[in-house]
């Protein structure tokens, strides 16, 4: 109860003081309006001004009732004070103004200012008590309200916190579920690598239980073959040097097996940036890895022999050559079986394949001792990579060993097959060469081994290569040279020794090469024979020589020399030869008796069938046939007798030994004299080649030799020079 609570004055009752005007209390409305104006805006209340006035009118009525009531109850002020606070008049200013407006305005507004005497004192006392109890009620209600609201907001905070905690727990539970149930292996370690937490997927992947893994160091999961660089990467992560790692990493299962994983590791830092945790996620990619390995093996190995294939060989050769150590050397033995095609063609591919497998096995055993790589390049070609190579000799040893390993015959399907191989060996310093250069050299060298007779190795020789390149270049440009008229003829007189009359000339072909100058036939005729160009070239020579001879004939009818033209073996074997010759003769109009064809001893002697027929045909046409370089081959003398030959040209080597009478080589003299008499016996004339001295000319004349040719008698010259002799 409030201290203002006390009894009303004795004898007082309702209406103890009269209001000036009767009926209703207009003063109440006015006072309420004044009161509203006074406190408006002091507190926020959700009331319009009309509502506020009506609210205060009620309160004012209750105060006035209490003031005038017979039984004074100051408790009314207390209730009004509470009511104000409950209507959200919470500002102390509202109270202050209310107390003031009650004191100053209530009695005048009610028209009670006139009251005097003890009633006035009673009114003043009552009003003061009402003001006091109103203040008391207001303060108490405001305190209650404040405490209630504080309590409410604290409850709200607790509730909100509880909800936040619940949400946090739910969130943690969610993440724990994600962590535990993830199909991917997840592990958390401290910066020192001590495992704090792993999930079931990771534990299962490695064959542990989750508990067993806690506390382990991540290093104990590492596969022993892991390269040192990878450990460094992890150290960098732990030390804060990098924040993420993505790589393929091998881990060790508890059963010792390797697990290939795709690893994503991250460093988790605290708010200051200090490394706190390492989090790693592992995806088991063992199967994918094995598949990749299998695919890689397939891509780099030969399915038949299981040997590395050319791809792998080139990879390794590349690696070997990539080294910049100038002392390192590399060796390549390029091996090709001799005559493998025959086996394949005659015994079938199946046997051929088995043979290749058997050979591969022999070679593998042979090279594996030295740790060299053996690859099958395709077909019947194999290659041995000697890297690093000690020296050339060691590479040759490898080639030798490979050849030896093939010496024993191979038994396949009841066949005993003897196989040999040719090997091109290239051995050189790693520096300054390339894969392409090495392989080109090996290829060329293999070809040399083949062309040198097979079943052998050949060592790459840069000088031989240079020569062959030059020859090749020459032979390649020859057809164009013929088209462009780079060839021309010189003529060397054939002189009758008895009277020094020029009876014929030998046409000698020359090549006026744009770079190399004038080339003699020894530089290009061999090439032309190899390439077959000798046929068109020979035809051109023959035609040119015949045209020239015809001119001489026209100029000195009856006295002009015959022309002697060399004929290569291939020309003799050319089926068009007789036709070509007769066409040329008729084109040029040269009498066949003015033409001599020179063939080497071996060309003539080896002839049979169509070539021999051609020779007979040419002789029948009236053309003279001479055997060139006679005495250097193996002549079948009885056969010679039946051949359509008119002249033997004695090789210059016999003439060389002939000197003035006393100094002459008796054997050479005997041979020459025997050959001359032999020729004469067979009704053939003899022409000696290579006469360089007067003594030689003299001896040959004495020995009965018919004709001579050589620098001493006359040098080869242009056609105009021939005319000078005639």
């Amino acid at each position, binding site marked *: 109860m409030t201290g203002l609570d006390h009894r009303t004055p004795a004898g007082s009752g309702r209406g103890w003081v009269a209001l000036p005007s009767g009926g209703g209390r207009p003063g109440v409305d006015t006072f309420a309006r004044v009161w509203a104006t006074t406190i408006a805006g002091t507190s926020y209340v959700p009331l319009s001004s009309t509502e506020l006035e009506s609210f205060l009118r009620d309160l004012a009525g209750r105060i006035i009732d209490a003031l005038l009531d017979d039984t004074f109850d100051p408790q009314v002020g207390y209730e009004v004070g509470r009511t104000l606070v409950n209507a959200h008049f*919470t500002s102390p200013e509202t109270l202050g103004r209310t107390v003031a407006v009650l004191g100053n305005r209530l009695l005048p507004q009610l028209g009670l200012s006139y009251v005097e005497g003890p009633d006035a004192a009673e009114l003043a006392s009552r009003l003061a008590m009402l003001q006091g109890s109103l203040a008391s009620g207001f303060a108490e209600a405001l305190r209650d309200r404040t405490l209630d609201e504080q309590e409410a907001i604290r409850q709200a905070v607790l509730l909100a916190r509880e909800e936040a905690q619940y949400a946090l727990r739910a969130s943690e539970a969610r993440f724990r579920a994600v962590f535990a149930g993830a199909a991917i292996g997840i592990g958390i370690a401290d910066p020192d690598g001590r495992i704090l937490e792993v999930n079931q997927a990771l534990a299962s992947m490695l064959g542990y239980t989750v508990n067993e893994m806690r506390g382990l160091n991540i290093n104990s999961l590492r596969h022993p073959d892991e390269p040192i660089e990878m450990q460094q990467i992890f150290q960098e992560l732990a030390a804060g040097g990098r924040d993420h790692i993505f790589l393929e990493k091998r881990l060790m299962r508890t059963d010792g097996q390797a697990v290939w994983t795709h690893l994503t590791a991250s460093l988790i830092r605290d708010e200051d940036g200090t490394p706190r945790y390492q989090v790693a996620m592992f995806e088991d990619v063992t199967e994918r890895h094995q598949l990749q390995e299998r695919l890689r093996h397939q891509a780099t190995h030969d399915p038949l022999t299981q040997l590395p294939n050319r791809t792998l060989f080139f990879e390794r050769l590349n690696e070997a050559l990539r080294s910049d150590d100038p002392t390192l050397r590399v060796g390549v033995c390029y091996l090709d079986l001799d005559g493998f095609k025959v086996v394949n063609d005659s015994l079938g591919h199946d046997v051929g394949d088995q043979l290749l497998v058997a050979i591969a096995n022999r070679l593998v055993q042979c090279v594996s001792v030295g740790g060299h790589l053996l690859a099958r390049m395709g077909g019947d070609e194999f290659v041995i990579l000697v890297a690093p190579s000690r020296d050339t000799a060691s590479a040759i040893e490898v080639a030798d060993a490979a050849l030896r390993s093939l010496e024993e015959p191979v038994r396949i399907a009841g066949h005993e097959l003897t196989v040999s191989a040719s090997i091109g060996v290239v051995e050189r310093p790693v520096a300054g060469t390339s894969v392409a250069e090495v392989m080109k050299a090996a290829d060329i060298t293999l070809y040399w081994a083949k062309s040198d007779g097979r079943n052998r190795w050949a060592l790459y020789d840069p000088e031989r290569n240079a020569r062959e390149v030059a020859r090749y270049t020459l032979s390649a440009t020859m057809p164009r040279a013929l088209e462009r008229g780079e060839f021309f003829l010189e003529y060397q007189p054939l002189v009758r020794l008895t009277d020094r009359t020029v009876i014929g000339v030998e046409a000698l072909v020359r090549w006026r090469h744009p770079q190399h100058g004038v080339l003699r036939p020894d530089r290009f005729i061999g090439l032309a024979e190899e390439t077959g160009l000798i046929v068109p070239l020979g035809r051109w020579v023959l035609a040119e020589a015949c045209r020239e001879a015809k001119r001489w004939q026209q100029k000195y009818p009856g006295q002009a020399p015959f022309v002697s033209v060399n004929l290569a073996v291939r020309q003799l074997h050319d089926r068009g030869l007789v036709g070509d010759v007769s066409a040329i003769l008729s084109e040029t109009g040269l009498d066949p008796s003015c033409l001599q064809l020179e063939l080497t001893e071996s060309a003539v002697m080896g002839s049979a069938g169509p070539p021999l027929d051609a020779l007979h045909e040419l002789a029948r046409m009236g053309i003279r046939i001479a055997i060139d370089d006679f005495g250097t081959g193996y002549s079948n003398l009885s056969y010679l007798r039946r051949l359509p030959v008119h002249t033997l040209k004695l090789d210059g080597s016999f003439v060389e030994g002939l000197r003035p009478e006393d100094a002459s080589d008796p054997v050479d003299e005997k041979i020459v004299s025997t050959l001359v008499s032999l020729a004469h016996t067979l009704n053939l004339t003899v022409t000696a080649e290579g006469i360089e001295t007067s003594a030689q000319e003299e001896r040959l004349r004495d020995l009965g030799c018919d004709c001579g040719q050589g620098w001493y008698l006359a040098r080869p010259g242009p056609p105009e020079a021939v005319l000078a002799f005639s």
Partner: protein
Amino acid sequence: MERPSWAPEDIDLERPSVARVYDFYLGGSHNFAVDRELGRRVIETFPLLPKTLQENRAFLRRAVRFCVEAGIRQFLDIGSGIPTVGNVHEVAQQVDPTIKVVYVDIDPVAVAHSRAILKGNEYATAIRADFRQPEVILSHPELQRLIDLRQPVALLLVALLHFFPDTEEVQRTIARFRDALASGSYLVISHASADTQPTPLKVAELYARSGTPMAMRTKAEIARFFEGFELVEPGLVLGLDWRLEPEEAVDDNPERHSGYCGVGKKP
């Protein structure tokens, strides 16, 4: 490390809360020392602020009554804060106790308090959500329980938008609400502005220092928030000019004119 969006926020009583400071301005005790400290400093700068807010509150009351008279029976009050005296459901349900009210606030304490107050009121509820996520709000099961989005709704954004400095974002967000609301819905906005006098800028500074950025927009900027709505009479005006009841006292102190109010109707 930044708190990821999925991790629940902790309740930080070291920082003043906009909702509790507002309660303090209105004479409530739903606040803590830290809130009162900011409140007092603001009032020092802008002594008329409590009155201004009272008037803002009065605008809210008038706007709610206007909507109720226009037939609206569903209210969505975003940024409702501490449900202090004269709240939307009190004003609206005075007329029709079955009027539905959904309060939305980002402040978990305000929401918890609202729920406590609304306990037993089957037509009003409070949910915690971010104004900038209309889809989250509109699809919230509590909202779905009370509000039928096929019927018109009054969307109240009272004394809220000046706490979102990104104007474009606010525009986009309002547009998303607008598109989800039925024809005949209302948009109620009150917004702080420094158009007529500069004091609110200082207030914004104080708020910014306490960790809550504020944006004082011009009338034209605020008007653009009503895009797609037709402003009802008298349009976008100072709070005291909006449908003041005839007997209400008009205080012409220009210092109090620190914000614009308006109500728009979706055609």
